[in-house]
């Protein structure tokens, strides 16, 4: 049966909201003008006035709703199925969090409201700080950074301020070759030079290489533990002492904190600075690329340099309870990383999560995350799979693990990319691919604790069936996917001749556009 018979809509092109414009349509109605109708020209110098209006869409409410609803249905999402995207901790996003974040007392609170009328918000931030401090095992917290990499930057700016305060100039920052791209990028932005540290046989930091490179011009070692291979570095204490002996700070990239909550704490491992990804470990929904929040926890020696403002708790005198305030009077502070108090809406969700799970629940989350990862690792170590996708470092993993697609590529001619694309046809999100870089054809798999055994089994079965299928006919995987709204896209072409915005006709109702839209009326809805 011809593809057209099977889905007449398949031949259609998607169109943008701008292309739905018809001059005169509108979704907005302005509130009544209840003041004198001064003309813009009368109060603004002509030179400052826009000549022709911005070419925004002209579409009625029903069609805006349909446009974005239809677009949404082209996204794979966490509420649809398994999403084992390594390093991203795609755990369930509880619906309660959206409800409490939407309470007017939270959602409609102005960031510059006097602290005396924002006591609930400040108390919430204070409680979240205390909870994160306890989880990290470090005494002081700033919630300000906007995401993980913003937290990394804060960490290095704090390190610089700390050393400068001691009259030291340090120029280098060490990062393992397994580190996430944001680490080296942050180093450069913070004005340091990156020095790579090698990885040892067992997947941990190569201690000899570290000793060699931990010179007195090194400001910091940025580490992820468990690291991006999903392995806990057994030598963490040794590493800490080497770094501290060199007078450098030890930075903890918290992206993998989901493995160790309530089990081991970065502070107890010797880390000076930790960032949290509230949008990973603490269930802020990812939103297709944000928002997130990257609070940091630090040791006493780093505390004086924390960004402003800091939430402070003022004990209530004569019987009345404590008050909360914002303190910006911190002479040694590195200043501000962003406006206002940070991504408060994210704090609300994460604090609700901590209340829901409690101390025991957080520990259980980490235990189950590690259990699920090791079970899936075991399922993928079965014959029929392991030959093609050997695990990169064969150790008990923590919350995630990394396979190498070398075998599949060499023996079946199916690259990791092909495997990932074919997985799309099985209704699951592929793992993180081609990272970490030191693993050839890497597949980085993080199931998280909120998945069922059935989901893990289904994924393992899907991988197995794809490999079986590839033994028969590797072309099937090489040309996958088949069931998605679009199939493989020309990324090279997109980068060579970038089209990064909608072309606009002379005016929204113009022929070119109309042309587009006849296209539409013949089907592209």
């Amino acid at each position, binding site marked *: 049966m011809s593809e057209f018979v099977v889905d007449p809509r398949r031949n259609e092109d998607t169109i943008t909201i701008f292309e739905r414009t018809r001059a005169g349509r509108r979704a907005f109605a*302005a509130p009544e003008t209840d003041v004198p109708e001064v003309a813009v020209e009368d*109060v603004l110098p002509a030179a400052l006035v826009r000549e022709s209006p911005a070419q925004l869409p002209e579409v009625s*409410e029903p069609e805006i709703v349909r446009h974005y609803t239809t677009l949404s249905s082209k996204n794979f999402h966490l509420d649809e199925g398994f999403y084992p995207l390594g390093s991203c901790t795609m755990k369930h996003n509880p619906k309660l969090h959206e409800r409490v974040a939407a309470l007017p007392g939270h959602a409609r*609170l102005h960031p510059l409201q006097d602290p005396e009328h924002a006591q609930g918000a400040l108390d919430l931030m204070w409680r979240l700080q205390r909870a994160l401090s306890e989880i990290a095992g470090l005494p002081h917290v700033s919630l300000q950074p906007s995401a993980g990499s913003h937290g990394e930057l804060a960490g290095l700016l704090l390190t610089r301020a700390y050393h400068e305060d001691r009259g030291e100039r340090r120029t280098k920052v060490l990062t393992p070759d397994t580190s996430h791209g944001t680490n080296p990028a942050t180093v450069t932005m913070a004005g340091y030079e990156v020095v790579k540290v090698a990885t040892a046989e067992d997947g941990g930091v190569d201690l000899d290489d570290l000793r060699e490179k931990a010179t007195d011009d090194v400001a910091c070692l940025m580490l992820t533990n468990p690291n991006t291979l999903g392995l806990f570095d057994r030598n963490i204490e040794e590493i800490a002492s080497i770094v501290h002996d060199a007078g450098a700070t030890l930075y903890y990239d918290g992206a993998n904190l989901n493995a160790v909550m309530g089990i081991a704490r970065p502070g107890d491992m010797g880390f000076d600075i930790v960032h949290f990804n509230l949008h990973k470990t603490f269930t802020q929904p990812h939103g297709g690329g944000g928002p997130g929040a990257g609070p940091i926890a630090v040791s006493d020696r780093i505390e004086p340099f924390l960004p402003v403002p800091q939430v402070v708790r003022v004990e209530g005198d004569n019987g009345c309870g404590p008050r909360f305030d914002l303190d910006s009077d911190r002479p040694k502070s590195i200043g501000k990383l962003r406006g206002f108090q940070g991504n408060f809406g994210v704090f609300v969700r994460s604090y609700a999560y901590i209340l829901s799970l409690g101390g025991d629940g957080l520990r259980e989350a980490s235990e189950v995350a590690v*259990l699920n990862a090791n079970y899936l690792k075991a399922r993928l170590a079965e014959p029929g799979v392991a030959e093609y996708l050997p695990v990169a470092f064969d150790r008990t993993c923590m919350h995630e693990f990394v396979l190498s697609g070398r075998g599949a590529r060499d023996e079946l001619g199916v690259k990791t990319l092909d495997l990932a694309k074919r997985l799309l046809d099985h209704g699951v999100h592929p793992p993180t691919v081609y990272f970490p870089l030191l693993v050839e054809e890497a597949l980085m798999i993080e199931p998280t604790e909120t998945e069922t055994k059935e989901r893990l089994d289904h994924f393992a079965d899907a991988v197995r069936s794809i490999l079986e299928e590839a033994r028969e006919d590797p072309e099937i995987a090489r040309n996958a996917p088949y069931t998605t709204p679009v199939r493989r*896209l020309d990324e090279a072409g997109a980068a060579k001749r970038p089209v990064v915005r909608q072309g606009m006709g002379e005016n929204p109702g113009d022929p070119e556009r109309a042309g587009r839209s006849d296209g539409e009326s013949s089907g592209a809805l």
Partner: protein
Amino acid sequence: MSRYTSITDEDLKAMLGAIGAGSLEDLFADIPASVRLGRDIDLPPGRSEQEVHEEMSALAARNRHADAETSFLGAGMYDHYVPSLVDALTSRSEFLTPYTPYQPEISQGGLQVMFEFQTAISELTGLPVANASVYEGPSAVAAAGYLAKLETRRTRLVASRGLHPHSRAALRTHAAGYGMEVVEVPLNADGATDVAALAEAVDDDTAAVFVQQPNFLGTVEDVGELAEAGKRTGALLVCAADPLPLGILKPPGEVGADICVGEGQSLGNRLDYGGPSFGFFAAAERFIRRMPGRIAGETRDVDGRRGFVLTLQTREQHIRREKATHNICTAQALNALAGVVYLSWLGRRGLVELSTLMLRRTHYARQALGLELINPGPVVREFAVRVPDLDALFLRARAAGINPGYRLGRDYPEYEDGLLVAITERRTRADIDHLAEVVGAPQGARQKEAVG
């Protein structure tokens, strides 16, 4: 088992068996005893959804939010009406729960939204290329400084005092990292950037000049004039802008701005006590390979079907690592979605209608209050006045259920008695007259009758 996990005792047994482990404990063998916590986290035990909801509601009840008072607070975030379709669409789990679109075939929704967002921002700013969002306003300003450094290799940044205090602070904080000095240029007697002083301040080592439209006092700056003065020595002109008034103001890109960044909250995002919202970043064509953050581009699939992908990724940390143009990874996709849905709702004419309504009410309010103006020049949505006894006004206003605005003295010693008043489409003439009455403006009161 918690309500979010699913591993039954039966499952556990089967799974440990498959792993070949005797107990959960075994899986953590790699963690040295010496760094084990060895006790429970010191946090209260978990609670039911109902109890957590009650606790969170009790916290929220201790905040005085924008519906609980008549607020004239602005200063960077504004109490605009967010239409229902924004919530309805951003709350769809198809938009709410995916990660950054690393697999374009199953992320066309998010990618096309980015493309549409970039188009809308480009239209507003008058600059051809925009990215898919950065964190928020002030850090976007700092990101522009980093681009200027990479582009010019110079070491000085010149910022107008009309730039939001938080933007100047964030610029200083980040510049301390990438090794640049920040110099400030004062405002003139009219509350606009002092052009002469600006021309003075720039030199051959100046990488970029930063201005804001409208500036922090609400003054509409003559960006063209500032660009001329600021770019003499080859520095880039960075304009931070409030996107909503750009509906009637000259797009910075049309009058010499090389880069336009800003805080996007006023576009369909909640106040949220300061975040999350989104920052936008637009620039001239020639900077496209130096932009920070994600950029969506249009392309075709193997069957010739139109599609969208993350493009120009060789700028980014996951590919270029230490050579990346910025370290940003997770940005503000969901907030940017709210922004483009909001702009689609306003539409071509609605944006102008809304901006015009704000302008008219702002001018009405400015004279209704009858106070001495700090910035007599052109304003569109916010203005600054001197108040003889600010504390007394706040007491009276609070008692009347009004939040009169922002105390400029917090950031500007030169305006110790300054009050910054913001107007949105939510503040009616009646609200303004009420404020005027509290301020004690005779004519404010008079107009009240007129409305009544």
